[in-house]
């Protein structure tokens, strides 16, 4: 953690030190109820989130289980594990794949749920709304193992439903799952499918908070429904869109290990192998925890920079997280 954040914020004016202290204390005292509310949560964060953070130092050590995290010896040079990652012949490919897959997922994972939420919000037929809302929510509960099974039934080159149609129509079957041309689309598509309805929930909740009088006033003014969506609904959920987007940016280097690990195969590695799958094969399977930790730290730092930067931009629109 950054040292300059470890104190409560500095006051703006600078009178004598004594009166300054009193001023701070009175200020804090005024907010005591709030601090009491924060206390249980902060204690939780300290115990379960911050205390274990000393674990990141193994990124700079040769972790030996018996010596423990603090007892293991420092690695020489201190950046050795980072270097191992950087010097992998696959480094640039891993980075490209991770960024590309992640960006696709960021875009396709953000827009469709918003559109779905808007459509559901506009839907005047109660039962249709309820049914579609529930149906699109269901895929979220299928694990990737099951979705892989579904994808095979649909896209397998032999016996997959779609290829059966193609062949029956006189075409040649397409290697959807083993070709570098289609694999990323399969990844992004299946993720969008899985999370469409789930992702819409939060936007629907945000829309429920929009003041209905705004719509009524707009109606009186003769605004079309598209205009109302554009001028009332979307601005009404803007802050939540920005919040989610900023937080997702922090995980730009994640790209979805669980999904890719289950779906990928040797023939699509050039487009599908991401940082996390590499770390899994190199670090975790070979018991090199320090390497895994170093790459994790690398990802976190990039994520932090992205979040700080995005928040700064968002602040200019008045939607920053802090």
């Amino acid at each position, binding site marked *: 953690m950054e040292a300059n954040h470890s104190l409560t914020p500095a006051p703006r004016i600078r009178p004598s030190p004594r009166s300054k202290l009193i001023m701070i204390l009175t200020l804090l005292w005024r907010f005591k109820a709030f601090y009491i509310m924060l206390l249980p949560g902060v204690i939780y964060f300290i115990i379960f989130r911050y205390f274990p953070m000393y674990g990141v130092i193994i990124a700079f050590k040769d972790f030996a289980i018996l010596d423990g995290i603090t007892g293991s010896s420092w690695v020489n040079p201190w950046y050795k594990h980072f270097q191992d990652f950087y010097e992998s012949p696959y480094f640039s490919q891993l980075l490209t794949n991770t960024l590309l897959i992640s960006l696709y997922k960021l875009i396709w994972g953000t827009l469709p749920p918003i559109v779905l939420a808007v459509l559901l919000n506009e839907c005047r037929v109660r039962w249709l709304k309820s049914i*579609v809302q529930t149906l699109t929510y269901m895929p979220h509960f299928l694990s990737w193992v099951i979705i892989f099974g579904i994808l095979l039934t649909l896209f397998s080159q032999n016996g997959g439903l779609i290829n059966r149609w193609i062949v029956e129509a006189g075409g040649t079957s397409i290697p959807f799952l083993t070709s570098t041309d289609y694999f990323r689309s399969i990844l992004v598509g299946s993720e969008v499918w899985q999370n469409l309805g789930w992702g819409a929930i939060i936007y629907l909740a945000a829309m429920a908070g929009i003041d209905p009088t705004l719509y009524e006033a707009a109606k009186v003014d003769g605004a079309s429904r598209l205009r109302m969506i554009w001028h009332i609904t979307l601005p009404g959920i803007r802050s939540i869109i920005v919040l989610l987007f900023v937080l997702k940016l922090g995980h730009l280097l994640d790209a979805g290990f669980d999904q890719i690990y289950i779906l990928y195969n040797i023939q699509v590695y050039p487009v599908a192998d991401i940082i996390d799958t590499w770390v899994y094969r190199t670090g975790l399977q070979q018991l090199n925890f320090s390497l895994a930790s170093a790459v994790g730290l690398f990802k976190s730092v990039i*994520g932090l920079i992205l979040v700080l930067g995005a928040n700064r931009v968002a602040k200019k629109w008045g939607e920053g997280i802090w």
Partner: protein
Amino acid sequence: MVRGLDDKIFNTIIYIILGLCGLAAVLPILYVVSVSITPFGEVLRNGGFILFPREITFSAYRTLLTESNIPKAFQITVLITVIGTTVNLVLTGLMAYPLSRRNLPGRNFFLLMIVFTLLFSGGLIPTYLVVKSMGLLDSIWAMILPNAVWSFNVLIMKSFFEGLPEELFESARMDGAKEFRILLQIVAPLSVPVLLTVGLFYLVGHWNEFFQAIFYVTDRTLYPLQVVVREILMQSQQPLENAENMMPTQTMQMASVMIASLPVIVIYPFLQKHFTKGMLLGSIKG
């Protein structure tokens, strides 16, 4: 009249798109359901693809509900979900409300502290050591406390609270209301959609919990549902090492998925109607 026509076209487009979304979601689900109630030999005979079962058997469900650890695991999962979600909501609400007050001294510090944990974590081993030193191993609390607050949900809730009109708080404070009362009696009732949303996120999180269970619990009688389901699913992903290993059929796998997810699926429609009740806010303002 022109507007009415426009409206009709607009509605039709919406219904068509929604219908397509629903269809895209339901067909694979239908496949899962169908496979779960079809004898596996029959599934294979149809090339592995079945949408409308011709031969129905509930034997997979019967086996799972009588011969596996699922009934016991189900109880554990319900217990974790109820206690866990309660703890989560209380703690999250208590954090989100103060943080939604823009004039709170130290607000940015606390927010950064929360965002920071979204990106950095100490890793498995030190977290395990904390859980162990607190004596939580092999208890249901090991599956609840380590995730008592999700940073993400605090930020969501805080963002919603920020949207509440400032005048509400001012008038309440003018009346001499204490902050705890404001939170409980003004903020909470006005925030039903977000409380339900965040509650749903937590609930589903607990329901799908297996990671912590595998880590912190070795007592099989404390295993939640997803651990048992995972055991069934993972077997199909690994090469057969032992001749005596019984591979669960796809029928069995799908049935286990159905049993494990049906309860959280059926509660959703009941939550939905509260999402549209945004009128509350308007009525208070007006």
